[in-house]
């Protein structure tokens, strides 16, 4: 599927594909003619991706309609020339852009991945800040600027030699487009955050830079001459809310086509004459933003419609898939404080320092002396993450399960194996990592009889409210939490839960992982030091060896496991689930 009318593949990808070569061509273009689904001749429709044999990625810009081939070649040639000529600033003359042209250079796979993840981090921060702060306030702006700087994206409108940051901005946007065009929800999320980001950056421009930027994106609206403005002064004043006559005189007005100023036109908040809206300077950002939204929304829809199933290459598609579901942070797989928790502490820790999901799982385990598979995975890996050693885990689960219907023998044969499996001691020896919030919220929703999942996401709000009441959370706090839940901000609701149970105003971090919750909670409660270990009599000899788990474990191989790598789930089915 090539975007050009001629049907010929772009020149740099014309070499024959050998099956052995790790070569992927992911085409994002428009099948068929330029009149496809509302697209018009001359629209920029997408770009194609070539994954090179040595882990490099390159784009070929593609356009629709006739003449696009020439456009594309000359634009690519020109860009290459510019790069060679060393005048990199020409490529990115402004600190922000409309992302109309896809990137045309090759980058390494490493850069591909890191750019994408960094932008994802940025957009998540944009989302969080947008919920927690009013967008025009200084705290919002400062925090966002810090994040931009930290992640090496353009953060200052005037920065002269910002080429690397701007390039990263450009490329990372297009990568995320591929990942986030694939469903309505993803598109909506991506669009919202990109718009907020754009709005912030646009507001940081000086008047002069703004003017230049508007010219650059062909949105330079015709300024209304002084004479005309005087003539229309009364009308302008009567049509534009918030503008008195003197203000009208001092502010610049622009003639904008009705299609560009739909909202102002629709609600009669501008003067309209001869098919044009007379927009004051202070409303121009609304117009620019609408323009950006329209363009990006259309581009996402087109990309989605023409994204074919990506063939064969296992490097690219998983990355794109997981980007939209990814957690980007420490994975809590290797704990420095392994063995610092004793089993006796768990009950009290579950109340003080566990996030609600784990507190709920622990309680369910204690009450029914059993947990189903989903709960065992989520809770078991969490416990591993807070520092429980394999022996402690085995002891912990066995003690509890024996009080239920399971006898010791059955435990050793089945459940013990899977616990060892999750510690990386059996089967293909993967050291499973504790689940992030994203994973808990988005995959494997609980059904009747399950206690796993995220209570803010998966519990009925009424039941959630009752539970919080039983935990003595103050009513005003409960209201705030439920508001956040209604707005689907589950992690923020959990953050609020943290703040209320720890009696702090500001959680001080962005919550992404249950183990992060635990670590931060412990740090807070212990005055910044490492979690204290209470004296206990349980046989725990790992004190001295802090950096890694001890290897002298008696792994009792189960007799039923004869094949090499049995997946955990398969084994569970063997021990009939309830």
């Amino acid at each position, binding site marked *: 599927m090539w975007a050009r009318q001629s049907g010929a593949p772009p020149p740099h990808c014309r070499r024959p594909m050998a099956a052995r070569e790790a070569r992927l061509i992911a085409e994002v273009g428009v099948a*068929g003619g330029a*009149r*496809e*689904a*509302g697209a018009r001749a001359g629209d920029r429709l997408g770009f194609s991706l070539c994954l090179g044999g040595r882990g490099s990625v390159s784009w070929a810009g593609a356009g629709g309609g006739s003449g696009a081939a020439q456009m594309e070649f000359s634009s690519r040639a020109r860009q290459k020339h510019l790069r060679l000529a060393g005048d990199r600033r020409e490529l990115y003359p402004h600190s922000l852009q409309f992302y109309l042209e896809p990137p045309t250079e090759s980058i390494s796979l490493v850069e591909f991945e890191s750019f994408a993840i960094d932008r994802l981090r940025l957009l998540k921060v944009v989302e969080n800040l947008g919920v927690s702060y009013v967008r025009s306030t200084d705290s919002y702006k400062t925090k966002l600027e810090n994040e931009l700087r930290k992640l090496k994206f353009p953060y200052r409108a005037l920065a002269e030699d910002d080429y690397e940051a701007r390039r990263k901005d450009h490329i990372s946007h297009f990568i995320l487009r591929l990942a986030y065009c694939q469903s309505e929800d993803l598109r909506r999320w991506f669009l919202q955050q990109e718009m907020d980001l754009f709005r912030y950056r646009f507001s940081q421009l000086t008047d002069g830079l703004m003017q230049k930027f508007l010219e650059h994106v062909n949105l330079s609206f015709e300024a209304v001459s002084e004479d005309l403005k005087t003539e229309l002064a009364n*009308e302008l*004043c*009567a*049509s534009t809310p918030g503008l008195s006559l003197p203000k009208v005189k001092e502010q610049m007005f622009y003639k904008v086509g*009705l*299609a560009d100023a*739909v*909202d102002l*036109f*629709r*609600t*009669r908040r501008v*003067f*309209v*004459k*001869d*098919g*044009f809206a007379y927009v004051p300077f202070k409303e121009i950002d609304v117009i620019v933003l609408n323009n950006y939204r329209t363009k990006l929304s259309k581009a996402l829809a087109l990309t989605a419609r023409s994204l074919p199933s990506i063939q064969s290459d296992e490097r690219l598609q998983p990355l794109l898939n997981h980007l939209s579901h990814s957690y980007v942070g420490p994975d809590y797989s290797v704990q420095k404080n392994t063995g610092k928790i004793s089993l006796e502490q768990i009950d009290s820790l579950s109340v003080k320092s566990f996030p609600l999901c784990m507190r709920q799982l622990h309680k369910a385990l204690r009450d029914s002396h059993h947990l189903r598979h989903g709960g065992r995975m989520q809770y078991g890996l969490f416990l591993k993450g807070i520092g429980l050693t394999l022996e402690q885990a085995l002891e912990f689960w066995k003690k509890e399960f024996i009080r239920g219907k399971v006898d010791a023998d059955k435990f050793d044969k089945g459940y013990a194996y899977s616990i060892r499996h999750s510690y990386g001691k059996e089967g293909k020896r993967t050291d499973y990592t504790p689940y992030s919030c994203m994973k808990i919220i988005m995959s494997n929703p609980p059904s009747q009889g399950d206690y796993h999942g995220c209570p803010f996401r998966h519990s009925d709000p009424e039941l959630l409210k009752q539970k919080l009441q039983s935990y003595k959370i103050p009513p005003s706090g409960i209201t705030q939490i439920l508001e956040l839940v209604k707005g689907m901000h589950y992690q923020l609701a959990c953050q609020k839960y943290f703040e209320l149970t720890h009696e702090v105003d500001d959680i001080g971090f962005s919550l992404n992982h249950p183990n992060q919750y635990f670590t931060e909670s412990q740090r807070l409660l212990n005055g910044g030091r490492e979690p204290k270990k209470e004296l206990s009599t349980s046989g725990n000899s790992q004190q001295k060896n802090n950096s890694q788990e001890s290897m002298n474990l008696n792994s009792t191989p189960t007799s039923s496991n004869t094949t090499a790598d049995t997946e955990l789930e398969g084994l569970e089915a063997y021990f009939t689930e309830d």
Partner: protein
Amino acid sequence: MAPFEPAALPELLPVFYRRLFPHGPYGRWLGYGGVVKNYFQLREFSFTLRDDVYVRFQSFGSPQELERELQKINPYKIDIGAVYSHRPNQHNTVRLGAFQPQEKELVFDIDMTDYDDVRTCCSSADICSKCWTLMTIAVRVIDRALTEDLGMRHRLWVYSGRRGVHCWVCDDAVRKWSPALRAATVEYLTLVKGGADMVKKVNLSYPVHPFIRRSVAVVEKYFEEYALVGQDILGSPESWAKVLALVPEDIREALQGEFPRRKDSVQRWEVLRGRMERTRGRGAAPCYADWEIMLQFCFPRLDINVSKGVGHLLKSPFSVHPKTGRISVPLDLQTLDQFDPFAVPTITSLCHELDTAGSDGEQEDVGETEPKRRARDYKRTSLAPYVRVFEQFVEGMESARRGERLRRSDIQGDF
């Protein structure tokens, strides 16, 4: 003259489509000068046939082909739809989702039933000469806005055949407008808001947008004749109570006292208006209740659904109204105030006129071509002036296209 009988349609329609329907200018209109390839071929028509059989997605290779089809099937009603991405009559062969409406005229539909809450003379499908003024006002208000505010040039206003009017805006750029922009236009043109449970449907606040001010100026020209004399809205305590319900409480009481002492609606209105103007002159809290009343009783009420969708079908000009028999004729804006919907020819009366004209001793010239004969035919009937208006409209667009071509070739320097 015999009244119109719907049962006669099967006999009359063939005569209509052969001898009266203005196929020539109609085809020139929808061809839009042939500037865009296949524009006519991609246009959807829908027909209502006898026994309420309805067919959509009809399309034709040329205006001549359309003419032949009309003369063959003699539809009761013709609707015009959008210009699509593919020929509508082949839409089933197109991949799902690829068959999309691309362009269409911006249309407005103003229907007298939407004014039932402020009409006393008639209701629902009925109209009379008294309430027809509402349509006149609607056309004036909307047309002013379309030309002065929105810069639109090629507007065709059409009598719907029974109780309303339609407007077709045919400017090149406007035909490409998105549904959002069309909906925004209707919102811009909307001042009367609220259903049966809303007493006060127009609320103005300072400062008043120029669109509103200019619309009020248009309404004012007709208000006395229509509302005060014709509808007599302040004629009796019951009727003026409805009007006073729209006035702020403090002023309402004073007017309640004043009104019985005046002799008619005109005088009472003067009292009310005077009061309002004084609040505005003083600069304190300006009150616009008089404007609000005028607007609630007279301002046009548009149906947003008709205008919003690019694919929405609307009755074609020169279509016959199946219930009244009246032809949907274009309105001449120059003589709009004198337009009488009851004088619009019906298909019955037109056919009758043809019969009379034919028997006036003129010999049929066998060698004469069909179009020529038809051109003479409708000219002999009362349809003539309406076709003339339509031709002027089409010529207006054609001359604008010529002007545009000249301008472009001037710029490019090729002659």
